[in-house]
C-alpha cells in the first residue's frame, strides 16, 4: 500500500529498519532470555538520531512528530518490541514535557533526550489505581518552595534506568482529579528509590519497576503546567502516546506475518510447502488484511494529530491503540499456529512475538478502557450536534 511518505519520512523508516537488522535482530533472543536492559543498543539508537524524531527541531530533535515516531517504532518492533520499548517509553515520558513544559524545562531536558543521553519514564499507575487512574494516592504536600512526595507507583516502564520521571501526584485531595499535579523528578533526588525489577511474560528487555517516594522533596520549578493540571497532563499525554503503543503492536504483528509467511513457504508436509494448503493461505490472508488495516488507521491517526487541525483526538488515538494491539495479538497467535510445534519453541521467533504482543492490549489504558473512551466520545459527538 502506498502511504505517500515524504523523503524525510522514508529516511526515518529506512534508518530504523537498517538499525533493527544490524543491532537488534542478532541479540533479541539473548535480551529476551536474560531480561537485561539494552544500554549499548540505546546508545547506538541515539547516535542514529532515532531517539529525537518527535522532539521539536529547536530542541535538537527532528520535528517529525507522532508520525515520525510511529514509523521508527513500527520498523524496530518488527524485529523486537521489547528492546524498542526503551525508546518508545521514553517518548511516553517526554510527551508531558513537550505538551506542558515551559521553555526552561524544555531547554534543560529535551536536547539530552533527543540525543539519547537521557531516558524518561511516566509514572501514573499505582497498586490501587490502574484503570481507575483518578484514585491515585501518592501525595505531594507543599512546603515552602518545595513539594514533599510520598507514595509508590507500580509497573513503571524504564523504572530504575530512566534519568527523568513525570510523576502524577495528589496536591489537593478535596478536589479529586482536579487536585492532582504533574512533577518532573530526576533520578537521584533524595527520597526517590526503586522497587524490584518485575519478571515479565514478554517485553523482557524492558525494565519495569516500582517508583518509591519517601519524603522526596521536589522544587516547584519542576511542576509541569501548574498545580491541579496533573490529570489533564496525564490524559493528553496518553492521547499523544497511544499511537506509539499502536506502532509497537503493528510492528510486532507485521514482523510475525513476515516470519510466518517465510516459514510456511519453507516447511513441507504431505510433499508440499504448507503455504500451498488453503487453510494456511486463509490465515495468512487474514493476517495481511488486518495488518494493513491497522497500519492505515494508525498512520492516519498520527497524521491527524500532527496536523493540529483536530483539537480532540482521544477517540482516534484510542481506536488506533486498541485496534493495532488486538491485531497484534491475533496475528501472533496465528503465527505460532502456522509454525506448528516450532512455534512453541524458543528457537523460533514466533512465541516471543506472541508474548510481547500481549502487553500492548494492557498498558496505556487497557483495550476495555480504550473502548470506553471511544464510546464516550461517540455519544458526546451526537449530543454535541443536537
Amino acid at each position, binding site marked *: 500500500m502506498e502511504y505517500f511518505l515524504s523523503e*524525510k519520512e522514508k529516511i526515518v523508516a529506512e*534508518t530504523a529498519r*537498517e*538499525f533493527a537488522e544490524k*543491532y537488534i535482530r542478532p541479540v533479541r533472543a539473548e535480551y529476551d532470555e536474560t531480561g537485561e536492559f539494552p544500554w549499548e543498543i540505546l546508545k*547506538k539508537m541515539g547516535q*542514529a*538520531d532515532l531517539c529525537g524524531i518527535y522532539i521539536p527541531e529547536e530542541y535538537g530533535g*527532528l520535528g517529525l512528530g507522532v508520525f515520525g515516531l510511529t514509523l521508527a517504532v513500527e520498523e524496530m518492533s518488527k524485529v523486537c518490541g521489547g528492546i524498542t520499548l526503551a525508546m518508545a517509553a521514553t517518548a511516553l515520558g517526554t510527551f508531558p514535557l513537550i505538551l506542558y513544559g515551559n521553555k526552561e524545562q524544555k531547554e534543560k531536558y529535551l536536547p539530552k533526550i533527543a540525543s539519547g543521553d537521557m531516558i524518561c519514564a511516566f509514572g501514573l499507575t499505582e497498586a490501587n489505581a490502574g484503570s481507575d487512574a483518578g484514585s491515585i494516592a501518592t501525595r505531594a504536600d507543599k512546603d515552602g518552595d518545595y513539594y514533599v512526595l510520598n507514595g509508590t507507583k507500580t509497573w513503571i516502564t524504564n523504572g530504575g534506568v530512566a534519568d527523568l520521571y513525570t510523576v502524577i501526584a495528589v496536591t489537593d485531595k478535596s478536589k479529586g482529579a482536579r487536585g492532582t499535579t504533574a512533577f518532573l523528578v530526576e533520578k537521584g533526588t533524595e527520597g526517590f528509590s526503586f522497587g524490584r525489577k518485575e519478571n515479565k511474560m514478554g517485553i523482557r528487555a524492558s525494565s519495569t519497576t516500582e517508583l518509591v517516594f519517601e519524603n522526596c522533596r521536589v522544587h516547584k520549578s519542576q511542576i509541569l503546567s501548574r498545580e491541579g493540571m496533573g490529570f489533564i497532563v496525564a490524559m493528553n499525554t496518553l492521547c499523544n502516546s497511544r499511537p506509539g503503543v499502536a506502532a509497537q503492536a503493528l510492528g510486532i504483528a507485521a514482523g510475525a506475518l513476515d516470519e510466518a509467511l517465510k516459514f510456511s513457504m519453507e516447511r513441507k508436509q504431505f510433499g508440499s510447502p504448507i503455504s500451498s494448503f488453503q487453510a494456511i493461505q486463509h490465515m495468512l490472508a487474514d493476517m495481511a488484511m488486518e495488518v494493513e488495516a491497522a497500519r492505515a488507521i494508525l498512520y492516519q491517526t498520527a497524521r491527524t494529530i500532527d496536523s493540529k487541525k483536530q483539537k480532540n483526538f482521544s477517540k482516534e488515538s484510542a481506536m488506533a491503540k486498541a485496534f493495532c494491539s488486538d491485531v497484534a495479538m491475533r496475528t501472533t497467535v496465528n503465527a505460532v499456529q502456522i509454525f506448528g510445534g516450532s512455534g512453541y519453541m524458543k528457537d523460533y521467533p514466533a512465541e516471543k512475538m506472541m508474548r510481547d504482543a500481549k502487553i500492548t492490549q494492557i498498558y496505556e489504558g487497557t483495550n476495555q478502557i480504550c473502548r470506553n473512551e471511544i464510546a464516550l466520545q461517540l455519544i458526546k459527538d451526537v449530543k454535541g450536534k443536537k
Partner: protein
Amino acid sequence: MNIVVCIKQVPANTHVKMDPVTHTLIRDRSGSTINPYDLHALETALQIRENYGGRVTAVTMGPPHASDILKTAVGMTVDDGILICGREFAGADTLATSYTISSAIKKVCPADLIICGKIAIDGDTAQVGPGISQWLGMSLVCNVIKIEKIEDKKIIVKRAVEGGNELVSVTLPAVITVDKSINVPRIESIKGRFKKCDFEPKTVNAEAIECDLTKIGLNGSPTSVFKVFIPERQKADHELIEGKNVAEKAQKVADFLFESKLIV
C-alpha cells in the same frame, strides 16, 4: 583536534575486472563499497570527536564515483569529505598513493591525527597508512584495537601484536591504523542521511594539492604488476562414506583421518 580518516573504495564482491594492459582494477560504480576496515576507522574518529571534541574529515583518492563512500561518511556524520581525483593519479601503487594522500592532507586538511584502516580488502598491502606517516614525518601505530586516552598532545592506544597486546603512547600528530575489533561501526544517522542528500565533496586534483607530478599515478609508481591471474583449482579425490547410522559414518570419518595422520 583535527582528525582525518582515509577511506578507500573497494569492489563489493569478487567479480572484478582487470585492465589487461596496466593490470590494475577496473573500478566501476555499481559493484563498489567502502573498505570494511575504514568503517571502523570512521567510527574511531567519531568516538574521539564525541569524547574530546574536534572535526572529522574523510579523504579518499579515487575516480569520481568514489564520492559515494564520502557520502557514506557524511551519513555517519563526519564534518567534511575530500575527493582526490584526476586522471593523473591513475595506476598508483602504495608509494604513489600514500604520497598523494599525504600531500592532500598537508595542503587541504592539516591533521593532528590521521586514522586509516589496517588493510584494504582489494590491494591487501597494509602499506598506505605507514606510507602516509613516513611522507609526513609522523609517528605511526598499526593494528590499534583500543583508544585509551588522549591528553597533553599525546595519544595512548592499545595495539595487538603476536602473543599479546601493547600499550603505546605517541606524540601527536600521528597516524594510526585500526583493526576491526576496535569497535562496532554506527549506521548512517537520520540527520546524516538528510545531509548527504545534497552533499558535494570538495574535489582536488594534482595542481590543487601542489604535488610533485613525477611521484604520482602510474609514473610515480615503482611497482608494476606483470600479471594477474586466478590460481588453478587443484583437483581432489572424493569418496562417499556409507553406513547404517550417523555414529557409524562418523566413526569411519574419524578412522580415516587418524589413519592418514590428518589428525593425531
